[in-house]
């Protein structure tokens, strides 16, 4: 490294490695976790009460939580919420293949 002359601020000897912030900091936004939870709830009630629109909303919720997920989130949870919501949709159509009745 060249000699640190007067106006060269670089100091190769003072390098500090990057320490990742703890995950639960106040800064990160809660939407992926909320959407994940909402997706789980909707797919549960879609499966239990055979409501098709619940299952579809569950698919949307897990997709939104996938879109907003952080890279530090583990993909297993993402995958499980997707599997659950898609299985809710498939199950509700296997039981009665009629078109979906909107909730209103």
């Amino acid at each position, binding site marked *: 490294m060249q000699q640190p002359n007067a106006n060269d*601020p*670089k100091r190769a000897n003072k390098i500090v*490695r990057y320490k990742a912030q703890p995950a639960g900091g106040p800064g990160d936004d809660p939407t992926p976790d909320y959407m994940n939870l909402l997706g789980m709830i909707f797919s549960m009630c879609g499966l239990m009460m055979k409501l098709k629109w619940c299952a579809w909303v569950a698919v949307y919720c897990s997709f939104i939580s996938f879109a*907003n997920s952080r890279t530090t989130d583990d993909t297993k949870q993402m995958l499980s919420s997707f599997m659950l919501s898609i299985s809710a949709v498939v199950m509700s159509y296997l039981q009665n*293949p009629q*078109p979906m009745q909107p909730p209103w």
Partner: protein
Amino acid sequence: AFVEDNDFAEFEEFEDEEDGVVNDESDDDVQEPVKQPVENEEMQEFDDEQEEEEDEDPLSDDEFEHLHDEEEFENFDREKDTPKGKSPDKLPDLQMAKVPLHLRTSWDSFYLEMLMIAGLTVYFLNFLAGKNKNCKLATAWLSAHKELLETQFSIVGDDGVAKEVTSGVLMKESENVYTLWCSGRTCVEGMLVELKLLKRQDLINLLLRIFKPASDQVIVKVDLDDGKMDNFVFCVAQKRSAAKLHKDMNDLSQFTERKSSEKFDMPVSYQLLSEVGEATSAVLDKKVCQMLTKHEGVIEYIHISDQFSGPKVQEDTQPTKMPDTKACLMFCFTIPGKGKTRASDMEDLKPLLQLVFYCVDKVSRLQLSREARMKAEKNRQKAEEMFLKAAHTQRQELAQQRREERKRAEKERLMAEEDPDRARKLEDRENRRESKKKQPKMKMMKIKAM
């Protein structure tokens, strides 16, 4: 078919035939069920004609000749009317079975499902487009600022994972947040640049932003070496975020108060939070004020503090340990354009990064006067005491609770005792102890009584 014995029998048959013919005409527009009687009538006529021919043949053919002459009958169509030799049993009545609606599996009744799938595809396409746009913006920012960063830091873009130091790595926290760590500079431990872009990949957020416009942000946090900075806390922020910062940030809420900014020629839209007046005027020199006026909307806040410990954490119990404080400078720049940023806009953010380095050097060279330093020291001690008092009261409450707990346990043990005499003995001892505690009051009572 029976033959009537009155004279007009033949004429009645005439009328039958005409009726039959008349019926033929009307049967086209009438519903099907009406058709059957006409066919039976025709069958009847057919039989009658055969009977007539058998018993009256010898009489004369010519009398009924006109019957076989087609012109006699108006719009009488041979093919349509006479049954073409089909035997009656082959004509099954085609009864349309009444099928209930939901058993019909036609695809167009699934329109809601198609709507849902269309929504999902739209969401996915927008996800891809938003992701690419954010990635493009982040790399554009990095390429615009890379050579400036390399003149200032010995490493730019280390992700802290690999054993030896990597360089040029822009870490992706999420689809819209990218971070860059630079280190190796005088009086600076490290600098973390966080690109907080808009959630372009989320369609819902996209729609939300139509009502509540927002824009991308670049947050630069410079960690100073210990002791490199004099003790003072200072913040200049846009009015809209000043109140929030003042309330949320630990150090701002403890040490600074709002100050008027007329003294400095800077835009009115900025709010000043300062602890030591001397330090504030030192930081807000001509160059910084110029930058503030030039980039009025872009510079969201500049926060310089030696007691920085992050935002207040909502904890019900008073934290027993003082939050660890660090000297740092934080800058937040809002990229203009309300979200419609292009990669080329990143170029004009470069002067702001130069401002960051200018402030870092200025603050590390800044020497406060003695009384300013004394004042700052006093503030810190006061804050410490307040904190210790709060922690002390909390400890006392805990002790109180423990004492009550012990007493309740004692009473329960007393109640739970089976054999009466031991219980009585325990009770006596308890009463004696209580009475000894209350002893002095008792005496006074007696004296007054005499």
